[in-house]
């Protein structure tokens, strides 16, 4: 009874609070954002009208709402950090942040958040920054709908699009990152969500994380990044409905999983990559309903991986389906659809009656002698592969799918 009275009373009080709106515009009495922030009381709103603001570094040190109207530009002049947030409960939107400084010592970013909670950074444009948005030691922050473009050419001289370090429960969603070093970079970030981001043409990785447990990645697109996506030393990763495409090159992986444990990867799409998934030291993970199309190698499963399950994945027109580096195989392949499968289904249970061995002799050979790739699709190689299929001698005997699907797996159905 007491609560029901108290809450409306408090809400009523809130309307009496003198929350003011400050409008900053060039050529008026209030032409500097820093002045507005200095004068404002906590929880005020600062509206910034369009114009170019060169104020060195702006520091937001109290809970404020900063609203850009018609894309005011915060120019870092290649020296400063345009926007530093050192308070919780800050909201930043509608700004164009450009040309931040560049030092390897400080990791200067377009917008950097220091040890804060509940910071919202949304709908901003970040152009030509070293790091784009940098969250450091923060919790429960949202970075959504931002567009980040950089024009770096070498890894050493460029920073990451969204960089989070020692964070918890942050949400990175609907951003577009282009031309940075890594599109999204997580280190020691837990319980967070990365969704619907598009990372294209970044110099190194589209997504890169380490020691970031219990994170959720969904509906992201990673395309044409220098070395694809690399994730390491992490438990309980959930990756669903992501698209990995056109990550090509000698050291490029659509997805590199290194020491990943107890994770779940489902409904992802891997198209036209040199290597679809490269796994090393990956354990107890499940791979379901992923589609591998036109990759050089759909899967490279090193012998250091164990207890992983591959189920209901579809493999179409890959040069090689699976390759490995040893005869030791401790993973389980079941009920996948392999377009190269040539078996039959006499009892009509939709499962092939003879096992499918996805590792071809030539995949093993070209692993050891890469230039042997020149002979791929040669009739001689075809004959050798055939002979190997009948009497496996080099390829691992127990890497096989005992119940391959006769038709591609269709999500939502119960076939297989």
């Amino acid at each position, binding site marked *: 009874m007491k609560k029901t009275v108290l809450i409306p009373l408090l809400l009523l009080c809130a309307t009496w609070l003198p929350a003011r709106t400050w409008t900053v515009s060039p050529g008026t009495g209030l032409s500097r954002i820093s002045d507005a922030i200095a004068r404002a009381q906590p929880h005020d709103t600062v509206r910034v009208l369009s114009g170019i603001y060169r104020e060195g570094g702006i520091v937001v040190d109290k809970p404020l709402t900063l609203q850009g109207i018609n894309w005011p530009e915060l120019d870092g002049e290649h020296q400063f950090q345009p926007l530093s947030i050192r308070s919780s409960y800050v909201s930043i939107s509608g700004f164009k942040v450009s040309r931040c400084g560049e030092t390897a010592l400080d990791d200067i970013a377009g917008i950097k958040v220091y040890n804060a909670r509940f910071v919202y950074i949304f709908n901003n444009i970040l152009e030509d920054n070293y790091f784009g948005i940098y969250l450091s030691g923060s919790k429960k922050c949202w970075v959504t709908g931002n567009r980040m473009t950089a024009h770096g050419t070498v890894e050493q001289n460029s920073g990451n699009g969204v960089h989070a370090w020692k964070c918890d429960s942050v949400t990175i969603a609907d951003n577009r990152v282009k031309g940075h070093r890594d599109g999204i970079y997580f280190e020691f970030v837990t319980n967070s969500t990365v969704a619907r981001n598009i990372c294209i043409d970044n110099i190194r990785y589209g997504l890169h994380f380490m020691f970031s447990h219990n994170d959720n990645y969904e509906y992201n697109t990673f395309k044409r990044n220098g070395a694809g996506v690399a994730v390491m030393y992490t438990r309980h990763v959930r990756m669903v409905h992501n698209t990995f495409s056109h990550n*090509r*090159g*000698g050291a*490029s992986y659509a997805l590199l999983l290194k020491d990943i444990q107890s994770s779940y990867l489902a409904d992802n799409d891997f198209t*036209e*990559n*040199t*290597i679809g998934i490269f796994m090393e030291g990956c354990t107890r993970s499940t791979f379901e309903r992923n589609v591998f199309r*036109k*990759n*050089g*190698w759909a899967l490279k499963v090193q012998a250091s991986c164990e207890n992983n399950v591959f189920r209901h994945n579809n493999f*179409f*027109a890959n*040069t*090689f389906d699976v390759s490995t580096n040893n005869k030791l195989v401790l993973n389980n392949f079941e009920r996948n659809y392999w*377009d190269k499968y040539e078996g039959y289904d006499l009892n009509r249970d939709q499962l092939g009656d003879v096992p499918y061995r996805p590792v071809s002799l030539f995949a093993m050979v070209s692993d*050891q*002698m*890469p*230039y*042997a*790739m*020149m*002979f*791929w*699709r*040669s*009739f*001689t*190689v*075809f*004959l050798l592969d055939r002979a190997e299929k009948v009497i496996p001698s080099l390829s691992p005997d127990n890497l096989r799918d005992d119940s391959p699907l006769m038709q591609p797996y269709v999500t939502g159905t119960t076939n297989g």
Partner: protein
Amino acid sequence: MKAYTAIEVTQSPTLQQEPTHTPMQMLKIAKYVVYDILRNRFVLAYMIFLLVVSMSFFNLEADPTKGMMSLLNIILIVLPLVGIVFATIHLYNSYEFMELMLAQPLRRSDIFLGQYLGMTVSLCIAFAVGVGMPVILYDGSVRGFTLIGCGLLLTLAFISMAFLATVLSRDKARGIGIALLLWFFCTILYDGIVLMGMFAFSDYPLEKVIIGLAFLNPVDLARIAMLLQLDAAALMGYTGALFQHFFGSALGTSLSFGAMVLWIALPLWFALRIFRKKDI
């Protein structure tokens, strides 16, 4: 114009002197060869076979890429085989026609090249209709046209080899034997030998050697051209990128095309040289 314009100049007293060359004579002979081959019906059957096979490849697979991959095998194996064997047999069978022609004051090279032209035109038409049409229908992209181009060049190269095999031996059985051996060597044996060499010398950097060796076999050249289209993703990995860079570049493309043209021209030139001096 009458059928054999050349016949009218038979009175020419000096037979040692070679008659003047006119492209019309060559084209005329080519025309008769085409008629002869068409009467044979083999080419028609070959065309229908190619058509049925390519249509079924594309219809069986939902993805045209897979159809292309299967078609590639046909092009690398069947096309050279049919080209070389058919051309050899036909050339032996038209020996009497050649003899008749040689009795006329015609240049030997015109007769020979006329035969070649007629043969290539009929087989290339069969290929263009049998494979080219379905490919353009189902996958009219760069890789489709690459496939058609490779097929045409391979047909030309293997007919050249057939002509060489024919002039090397008077005996039909031996000639066909040589032709089959050439086919077997190019399609299967060569790759096997190079692969074996590669295993034996795997401690050495062989990338450039392998690129060089690819030029020594027209089937490999065609295969690599298609590989660049079909397995680009895999080729980008590791040293595969080296091949991608070389064969994918303008220089590599023109070099491989040049090598292919040499594979057509050289056997034909050798065959022509032998044929000119040959005692029929």
